[in-house]
């Protein structure tokens, strides 16, 4: 159905210039294309990476003024001057993104608003370069017919690029960061880098649209690049559909045509925009495209899993091999606002087998995992992985050294399908070439097939293969944990940290989990650190146990010895034994 829809859009775009020579209609169609290009760029930022910008009129302006100045000042031809604007916007976008994306939410909105206002005022003040409030006229322009073909082609290419991006390792990484930044970093993805990349792409596309705007009109002035323009850009995306490839086009059509159809109501324009924005947020959280699609999905059967993708490959082999200590924690301490969470914790994990960490609630078990994986910074002590210090490294860097983890509350990427979740783990930090992802080159498609096959094999091993194409959000709690473990194993870690993997599971599911973990051990899989309350499970499968209480290790050794230790009994039962 989607393919037929795109075919109809393409046919309409091709037929329009033949059906009418009315330049007004062609001009409107050009405006639709420009708005769609900017909205598609914002879609990469907001729809994929989950960050809102209210300053994209600034990048649109950079594109327009860059192209206009190259054409009028340097006398460059059109085909060279439009890219000048686009590159200018991309460079500034990368710089602003690198500075601004340390913050998110309302703070990021403020930075982008501030950026937009600064650009607007620079355009007005720097009269010698920009012509001030009067702007730049006499920009060599194409006839409307020529502009139409150029803009139509640019729109098509833009939508194609964003569709490719969505289907690539980069696109999945962006969506993962949007869905759960914490979990994405645990797989080796730098959330900051991913967001900055998305910001740069969206700035470049806004710049492209700005350059085309300049040569379509032949005249530009600061009036076209205000905060209100930025809001309209965002509105087009939200109305059309956040996160969907077709959404920006739908939004572009709606936001261009509605004001034209309602010219008699020009005084009510802001009310119209404001109401549309409210309607989009209230009633159409996934935009027009999402609303149409969810209606269509209700009638479509689930795609069956093809037999050849099943059960092809054996589950993973860890990279670690030697029997020496893999992880050494020495004198580790951390406190939060005066509360000592851990102090003097020493722990050694050999490169194979299952090491359990147990202790009463609040003993500091999860804190220990957060310290090892880089989410917290220790106040004292050392953490070494295979002899190299890793304390204080950011989570994604620790993950890249072969440390995988799961979370107390399972954090699958809900916006992605089950198989895509695992594909993110398989790819890890290796996202491939960004250009390849955008253009969907042959290397990228080959890689995609390999990633998918590997991910399906991993899912098969945990019995999730039949649900591979379902959205992760649809899984029940037990399967979410299974998915999270499969995703962590997909990174082929040397060390796997499981934070209460049995919490909330049924007895059958716990037995399954135990069987899977021991199978992993007998295959020479990664070293496993198991934080767990479930004593039956811990005693049954652990090779070694460390007991934490009030932030200290009070006992360590083989399960049988730990069970008899009087201090452990006291910690658990609260009475001296």
């Amino acid at each position: 159905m989607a393919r037929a829809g795109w075919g109809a859009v393409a046919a309409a775009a091709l037929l329009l210039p033949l059906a009418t020579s009315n330049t007004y209609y062609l001009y409107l169609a050009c405006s639709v294309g420009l708005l769609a290009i900017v909205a598609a760029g914002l879609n990469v930022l907001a729809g994929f990476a989950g960050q809102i910008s209210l300053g994209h009129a600034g990048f649109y302006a950079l594109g327009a003024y860059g192209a206009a100045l190259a054409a009028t000042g340097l006398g460059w031809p059109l085909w060279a001057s439009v890219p000048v604007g686009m590159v200018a916007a991309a460079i500034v976008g990368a710089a602003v993104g690198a500075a601004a994306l340390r913050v998110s939410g309302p703070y990021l909105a403020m930075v982008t608003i501030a950026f937009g206002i600064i650009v607007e005022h620079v355009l007005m003040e720097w009269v010698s370069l920009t012509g001030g409030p009067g702007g730049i006229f006499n920009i060599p322009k194409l006839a409307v017919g020529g502009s139409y073909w150029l803009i139509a082609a640019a729109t098509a290419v833009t939508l194609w690029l964003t569709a490719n991006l969505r289907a690539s390792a980069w696109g999945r990484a962006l969506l993962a960061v949007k869905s759960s930044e914490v979990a994405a970093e645990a797989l080796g993805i730098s959330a900051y880098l991913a967001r900055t990349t998305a910001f740069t792409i969206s700035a470049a596309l806004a710049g492209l649209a700005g350059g085309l705007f300049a040569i379509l009109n032949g005249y530009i002035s600061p009036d076209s690049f205000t905060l209100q323009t930025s809001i309209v850009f965002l509105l087009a995306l939200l109305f059309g559909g956040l996160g969907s490839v077709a959404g920006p086009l739908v939004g572009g059509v709606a936001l261009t045509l509605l004001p034209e159809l309602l010219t008699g109501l020009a005084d009510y324009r802001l009310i119209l925009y404001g109401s549309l924005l409210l309607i989009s947020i209230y009633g159409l959280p996934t935009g027009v495209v999402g609303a149409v699609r969810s209606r269509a999905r209700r009638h479509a059967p689930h795609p069956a899993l093809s037999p050849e993708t099943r059960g092809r490959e054996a589950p993973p082999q860890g990279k670690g091999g030697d029997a020496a200590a893999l992880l050494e924690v020495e004198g580790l301490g951390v406190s939060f606002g005066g509360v000592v969470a851990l102090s003097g914790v020493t722990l050694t994990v050999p490169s194979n087998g299952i090491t359990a960490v147990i202790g009463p609630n609040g003993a500091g078990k999860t804190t220990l995992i957060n310290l090892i994986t880089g989410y917290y910074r220790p106040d004292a002590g050392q953490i070494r992985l295979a002899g190299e210090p890793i304390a204080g490294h950011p989570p994604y860097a620790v993950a890249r050294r072969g440390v995988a983890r799961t979370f107390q509350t399972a954090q699958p990427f809900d916006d992605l399908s089950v198989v895509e979740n695992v594909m993110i783990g398989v790819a890890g930090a290796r996202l491939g070439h960004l250009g390849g992802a955008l253009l969907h080159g042959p290397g990228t498609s080959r890689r995609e097939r390999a990633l998918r096959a590997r991910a399906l094999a991993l899912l098969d091993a945990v019995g999730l293969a039949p649900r591979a194409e379902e959205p992760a959000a649809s899984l029940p709690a037990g399967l979410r944990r299974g998915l999270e473990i499969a995703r962590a194993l997909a990174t082929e870690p040397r060390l796997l940290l499981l934070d209460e993997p049995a919490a909330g599971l049924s007895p059958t599911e716990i037995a399954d989990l135990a069987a899977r973990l021991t199978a992993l051990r007998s295959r020479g899989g990664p070293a496993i650190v198991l934080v767990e309350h479930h004593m039956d499970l811990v005693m049954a499968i652990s090779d070694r146990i460390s007991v934490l209480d009030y932030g200290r290790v009070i006992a360590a050794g083989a399960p049988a010895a730990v069970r008899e230790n009087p201090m452990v009994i006291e910690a658990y039962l609260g009475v001296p034994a």
Partner: protein
Amino acid sequence: MYGLVALGYHITWATSRTMNFSQGHAVMVGAVIAWGLAVAAGWPLPAALLATLPALAAFGALIERVAVRPFFRASSPAWLLSTIACGIIAENVAQLLFGKDARAFPSSLTQRPILVGGAGFYPQELLIPMVGLGLMALVQLFYHRTGYGRQLKAVAWNAEAAGLMGINVPRAVMAAYALSALLAGVAGVLLAPLLNVAPTMGTIIGLKAFAVAIIGGLTSAPGIVLAGLGYGLLEAVVAGYVSTGAREIVGFGLVILVLVVRPWGLLGAPPARRV
């Protein structure tokens, strides 16, 4: 003056971790209503002022009901966009009722400037920071000394626990929004004689106040008031020695700088990372 409006961001942020991005439009609504009553209808100024304040509180409560409550739990920036939407609608409505042109708001305090060391001030300009500091002190008293203020603080700390303790959380949030719009309205009435009253005046005031709130630290009321005074001085200096256009460039450039170097503001508390 910016401090006064920015305090409004602080109040709703502290209570609900949301804020009205159209705070500036509340300033505009205050100025427009006061103008309508005092100038167009010829009411005496105190009466107009008294009538304006409840109207503003209602405006704030309305924004909360329409644009914030449906999205209170959502971590998405939906409330950010929906409050902007309400702001643009308010601007358009004001335009329809008031007209597009700016109008003067006469006040006895802007008739004759007083000279202090060669620079001229209107008494009104001195009144604003004094009222600002006074209101800030009142807000602090309200938070620390009254039961209702403590309830709002409890909601800020942990909405769920506050709800379990019998605090009506939605009502507390609505009260915070009403209070914040009320402060904005006071700012609007005070500003009206200095600037001209126009439906478009809200956007830039709101943005600058937000900039001030971020510079001072969204979680710190004294930081915001200090930042408000500093920002006002900086603007006056830049506008005086360079140009009015450069004023916005320097001001908003400063915001970006603060956010990059110290994202939680000068006196705000850095947020704890939760995993």
